[in-house]
């Protein structure tokens, strides 16, 4: 087990290193000189050289890359002498746009993305699994057909279309919700809840529909298994066979998919956050890309990859607990 985890961790580090390298290569090769952008309109060649040397942009590619990588773990210094700025580790550099520390920006915005992700996840798990279970138990009835028809429809709405439609109906026409505002929970819990409600609904819809269909298919498959027939022939009631024998094998695959989906969302719900103007990591990604803010782009890409890789590992480890048929053997 320990060997397996160690091997997986090594693989994770390798993948993160490669993501880092590829992102760096693409921005190193394709982007215009950031010094020109930082320098602005009143620019002289000397000033550009100065910016280059302060940011380390005059170094060759390998030097810049390892400078960045080293900074993440141990911090780094920008400039020399009187202009020296120490960026304490974990250091992701400074935004070319605002001059803010990128690490601080991430720390500041991560709670917003986490709030969006957690709220949406609670909604879609509840709705998706309950609807899927009911459909499986009542297979072929009008409830099943209606629910599955709705699920097919709901998973076909692009989330920005749903976001705009909801905003039009709930905010403009019915006026039951205010336009989302950046309010902390402690300041005004009601406005906080109302502001997050639409992003939660929008994100949850697509996933809930998908999970409902998956749950239904898995439960129906499980109900047809031999061990279910055994359980029924032992004389267990339908409710008991469902609770004791069917739920666990049917929901285990859902747990793995959930882990991956949730991890991906923690890295920022780019479209939803942008449409609703929520200051999370996803909006930070969109903004940094629009403004060519390379250090921020590097940070959001790495952060998202980090969550995906961690999610992957957690899912595989939890899977062995949930499904006793799977055992990890050190190879």
């Amino acid at each position, binding site marked *: 087990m320990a060997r397996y985890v160690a091997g997986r961790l090594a*693989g994770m580090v390798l*993948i993160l290193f*490669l*993501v880092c390298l590829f*992102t760096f290569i*693409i*921005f190193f090769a*394709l*982007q215009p000189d950031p010094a020109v952008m930082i320098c602005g309109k009143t620019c002289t060649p000397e000033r550009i050289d100065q910016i280059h040397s302060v940011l380390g942009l005059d170094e060759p590619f390998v030097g810049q890359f390892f400078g960045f990588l080293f900074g993440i773990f141990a911090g780094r210094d920008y400039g020399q002498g009187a202009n020296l700025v120490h960026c304490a580790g974990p250091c992701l550099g400074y935004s070319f746009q605002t001059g803010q520390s990128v690490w601080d920006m991430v720390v500041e915005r991560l709670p917003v993305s986490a709030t969006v992700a957690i709220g949406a996840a609670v909604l879609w798990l509840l709705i998706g699994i309950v609807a899927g279970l009911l459909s499986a138990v009542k297979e072929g009835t009008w409830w099943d057909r209606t629910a599955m028809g709705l699920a*097919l*429809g709901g*998973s*076909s*709405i*692009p989330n*920005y*279309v749903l976001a*705009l*439609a909801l*905003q*039009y109906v709930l905010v*403009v026409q019915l006026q039951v919700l205010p336009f989302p505002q950046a309010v902390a929970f402690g300041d005004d819990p009601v406005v906080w809840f109302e502001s997050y409600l639409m992003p939660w609904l929008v994100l949850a819809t697509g996933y809930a529909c998908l999970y409902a269909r998956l749950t239904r298919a898995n439960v129906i498959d499980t109900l047809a298994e031999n061990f279910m027939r055994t359980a029924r022939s032992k004389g267990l009631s339908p409710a008991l066979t469902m609770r004791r024998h069917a739920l666990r094998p049917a929901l285990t695959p859902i747990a793995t998919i959930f882990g991956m989906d949730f991890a*991906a969302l923690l*890295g*920022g719900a*780019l*479209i939803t956050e*942008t*449409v609703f103007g929520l200051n999370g990591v996803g909006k930070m*990604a*969109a903004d940094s*890309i*629009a403004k*060519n803010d390379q250090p921020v*782009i590097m940070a*959001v*890409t790495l952060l*998202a*990859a980090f969550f*995906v*890789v961690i999610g*992957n590992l957690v899912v595989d480890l939890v899977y062995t607990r949930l499904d006793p048929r799977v055992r990890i053997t050190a190879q």
Partner: protein
Amino acid sequence: MTVAALSPATSGRRVTHALLRDRGAVLSTAFLALIVLLAVFAPLISAITGHGPNDFDTAAIDTDLGGIPRGSLGGISAEHLLGVEPQNGRDILARIAHGARVSLLIAASATALTTLLGVVLGMLAGFYQGWVDQVICRVMDFLMAFPALIFMIAILSSLPQGNRSVLLVVVISVFGWPYLARVVRGQTMTLVNREFVEAARASGASTGALVFKEILPNLRSSLIVMVTLAVPGYVGTEAGLSFLGVGVTPPTPSWGQMIAGSVGWYAVDPMYFAIPGAFLFLTVLSLTVLGDRLRAAFDAGEAS
């Protein structure tokens, strides 16, 4: 050999019959046919109505009211069947039809390229296994760990020049093939060990014959289903990237871009948002329903 040779004609006919009896599948196919016709005859539609996708019509908008369309429902009239855009009065029907060309062409090309990459690499990994499999699997792990959307946007926004449509197809395909290849790999691995493949190998069939005559025909049904279910994803991705401003560049119309353009107007001119939104939703829905029914039809065939 028998497994491969016997099934295509009969199973093809059976699946067609099953789909013809299904109301959802028929409706979806009809809607998709309508969209394809709209795309193919987009120039003809413009010629008949007299409105090109980029022709301004200042008579159709009310400049005193900030440029919102004259008349109700976003300016729907005999002149403009689906209304006009606010501010410049471009005909929405013409833009929807020309936008369908862009969306369908990109989605179809991305599907073709993804399928090619997915099938070739997936079969290579499953057929040869060993180090070939190791390399391909690691590349797939790497690509799937990548935050694809962020990266697609970053790449597309950093390449201002060049043909955007081709770039979109390449970027979507590069991040899309592992999902197909993973399934192809798994199925190839089991097929390689089946008796009929061993029999063909023992009777001296070449590698090419094994791959194209024994294994590929048996992947056919799952490929058709996976590809049909992938197309709506690509239509959505293209529209999403255009919505975020890194897809097709204006003035070339695309549905996602039209929806992005309507963001500032949805409160005063909801039709400007509703029409492209509905077209996008119905297209994705039709493709999803069709893929879903296809899978059900193929599964029923396997069970019988």
